[in-house]
């Protein structure tokens, strides 16, 4: 299925969990995840199932003012 991962179109196997998709993309901690603009706590990533067309954001620490 087709997803948007940090603004980029990606293709993944259907039925993968959000956790598996993020691991497959090589995300390195620390990070937090949002699905379609909604925060998904780390503990819910294994049981969250994205659907075709969903948008995933994986964010990590950066400088801020």
């Amino acid at each position, binding site marked *: 299925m087709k997803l948007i991962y*940090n*603004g*980029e179109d990606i293709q993944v196997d259907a039925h993968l969990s959000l956790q598996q998709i993020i691991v497959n993309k090589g*995300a*390195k*901690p*620390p*990070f*937090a*995840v*949002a699905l379609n*603009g*909604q*925060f998904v*706590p*780390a503990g819910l990533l294994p049981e969250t199932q994205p659907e075709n067309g969903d948008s995933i*954001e*994986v*964010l*990590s*620490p*950066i*400088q*801020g*003012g």
Partner: protein
Amino acid sequence: METTQQDKLNIYGESFDSRLLIGSALYPSPQIMQDAIKSSGADIVTVSLRRQNSVAAGEDFWQLIKDTGLRVLPNTAGCHSVKEVVTLAQMCREVFQTDWIKLELIGDEYNLQPDPIGLLEATDILLKDGFKVLPYCTDDLVLCQRLADLGCEVLMPWGAPIGTGKGLINPYNLKTIRERLPEQTLIVDAGLGLPSHACQALELGYDAVLLNSAVAGAGDPVAMGSAFAHAVSAGRMSYKAQAMPEKDVAAPSTPTMGMPFWHQN
């Protein structure tokens, strides 16, 4: 710059020695960032979140910040909607393991002015979700009162638009907010360029200042960090010492009694 036990910065019940909060962005190098943060004497440093595939986001930067040993204040910089700031605040809470959030909700792209309407809505949502909200807001008295009514113990009105270095463009507004909200912790956030601007904010009775560009954008950020530390300390001491009343008419300081060359007509 010693701080007495009775005169510490209070943020949601926690006490801090330094009245300068500093940003971690825009420094020429990671080493200069660390050195400038240290020279500023700040106890609190601001950070943010961005996509992991962006250039500088990740564990390396986070380790540098952790090495400073300072308290972290995450921000929601760049957000333009209530939904965005709420989601980003929740993500910050998980990554940075803090319920503090510097709430930034931009209402105008030209001067990066905070959106006062959305800010109230987002603040209400986040306070009810257990956050300790430090809202970045304009210097509007009624907005600040509404934020305080919602439960904000800390308010952060701007001195001037972000990154301009103009200083306090409306001291009257800031002074009025201080007078009308004597119990709130007030921090001037954004727009400062010179240590004298920070000193002025503290002299007005503000509890602290938050700045980034003024230090990071200086020719010598490490020296400027130290300059701001001194200015903040001087401003606080001045406020506590209660400045003389301003007058419109000159008054001689040298005694006039026994004035030479004086003749009674």
